[in-house]
């Protein structure tokens, strides 16, 4: 799917941009989370651009503190984008995404995202470790 290949390319560009621009000190043009601005709560993606900045500078630990879920899902997402991207470039008989997972794993990922969302908003140790810090 061309959209996914474009997403992969855009992600690389954003990572490259974030390497020299830290969202924390206001030198990044990427918008902050509007859900966070409106409610003060963290969404599952909050801390994502800061994690991207840390990752682009190879600071894995810091990226993990900003958004642990994103860092954990990243290998899976990158593999997905790579597989779909290659299939798309090979073209010919490509008819749609090829990444197949058992249904239960898909539900597990959904559960992870929702669970992460709730837990990172609990202002108590150890849950507060899941909020960007």
């Amino acid at each position: 799917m061309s959209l996914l290949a474009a997403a992969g390319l855009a992600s690389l560009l954003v990572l490259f941009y974030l390497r020299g621009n830290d969202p924390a000190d206001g030198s990044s043009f990427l918008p902050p989370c509007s859900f966070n601005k409106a409610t003060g709560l963290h969404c599952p993606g909050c801390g994502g651009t800061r994690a991207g900045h840390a990752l682009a500078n190879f600071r894995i630990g810091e990226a993990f503190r900003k958004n642990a879920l994103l860092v954990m899902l990243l290998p899976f997402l990158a593999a997905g984008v790579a597989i779909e991207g290659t299939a798309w470039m090979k073209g010919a008989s490509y008819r749609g995404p090829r990444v197949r997972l058992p249904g239960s794993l898909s539900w597990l990922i959904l559960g992870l995202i929702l669970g992460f969302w709730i837990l990172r908003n609990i202002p108590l140790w150890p849950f507060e470790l899941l909020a960007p810090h």
Partner: protein
Amino acid sequence: MDWYYAKNGERQGPISEASLRSMLVTGEIAQTDLVWREGMPDWLPAGEVMGHSGEDSVTSNRPAQQPPGGSQIPQAGIGGTGMSGGTIPDEQIPNYLVQSILVTIFCCWPFGIPGIVYAAKVEGLVARGDIRGAMEASRKAKTWTWIAFTTGLAAVLLYLALVALGIVAL
């Protein structure tokens, strides 16, 4: 034109269109059973094919001379749960799981979450052999993913425009 159909993991036919229709009526071929004829790029559920008037809707611009996969019925994709025989070409039904997770995390969970729900449903429905349901879930996952993607893109562009106009400070 002669039709082939998949029954118990094996290709059957050729039979005439009239026979195919009557077998559909009698239930000998189910709506969800896969059928193919020359000119179709892939096997499709009989219900899908016979629901349309034929020719235009199912004939691709790449006419195939042989059934896809030679004399074999397409095998189930890797990880197709519960399908040991592999009669259903489930790799044809995209689940949009990766895409919906991406849009959920990077921009818009309100639209991304339903996308993941439908994406997750696709797998279970395929495993149960409910091709029609899986296609429906796949379509909904795609719709939600696109809604999330376009909303996110519009929001980012709007934000950048406001910044450029000096209405919003960085």
